[in-house]
């Protein structure tokens, strides 16, 4: 260690804070507890969503099986009915004023969503 090393070590050791106040570790532990709660809540939400998806799938499957084996409705009947609904929906949009208003509504929704998104991002940056 040369003279400069010694000098630097000496100065730096005098610059340092030797002990943090007690609040620091308490704050850290509080933040850890908060994070734990958030993670647990997220996990719970995810489990509930998965459960909901599984229930929906089971419900759809049971309806399908019920239709097929109890009411003896064939799958192609269901498909043709769905096709009919889609066609009805498509016909509605063939009207010029309906499609124009639909585009206006969709654009307004997109603009509102964008505004919300940007506002959130900016407020985060300011924080």
């Amino acid at each position, binding site marked *: 260690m040369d003279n400069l*090393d010694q000098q630097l070590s000496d100065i*730096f*050791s*005098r610059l*340092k804070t*030797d002990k*943090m106040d007690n609040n*620091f570790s308490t704050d850290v532990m509080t*933040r*850890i507890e908060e994070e734990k709660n958030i993670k647990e809540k997220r996990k719970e939400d995810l489990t509930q969503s998965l459960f909901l998806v599984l229930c929906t799938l089971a419900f759809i499957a049971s309806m399908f099986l019920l239709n097929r084996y109890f009411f003896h409705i064939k799958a192609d009947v269901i498909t043709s009915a769905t096709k009919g609904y889609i066609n009805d929906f498509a016909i509605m949009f063939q009207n010029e004023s309906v499609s124009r208003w639909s585009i206006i509504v969709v654009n307004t929704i997109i603009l509102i969503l964008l505004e919300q998104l940007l506002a959130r991002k900016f407020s985060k940056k300011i924080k």
Partner: protein
Amino acid sequence: MTREEEILLIKRILSGESHLYKDLVERHSANIYNLVLGVVSGREDAEEVSQDVFVKAFFSLKSFRGECSFSTWIYRIAYNMAISRTRKKKRHYVTIDCNNSNIFADDDFVSGKDDEREILHSMLQRALIQLEPKDRFLILSFYMNEKTIKELVEITGMSESNVKTRLHRIKKQLNIIINENREIVYG
């Protein structure tokens, strides 16, 4: 605390006794704070980043395999978080007004007995501000927290020769800045 005791403590924390983590925080908080303060320059920022470091370390504790000491491991987290904070805040050394910025607040100083030492302190602050955050981290870890070259290699992920070269360059740079300022001070 030996390495074995540290690993045992971490195992107990992982097995559910999370309140024991407070011991680790109290043991390492001052060193982490000093280092982060040197890199991010600002007491509030430094305290926030230091807290983030300990919170992140807690949730990553499972990945601690005991290959290095806990201190080295948490320094690595502190290094990454402090550097990324400086990037986010764009506090590059060029944009800092050297006359108005203090890396260490005045009350962090233990007042020196002789005037020259006091002058050296302020010169060192100015010199540190002019360094890059990565270099500030290296020099502070080396001199303030007495980390070895080997530990610095583990913390920063740089090669040994890179760390040595950087330290040598910073030392020379600091020496020049100190001498230049000494001439200004003494005329």
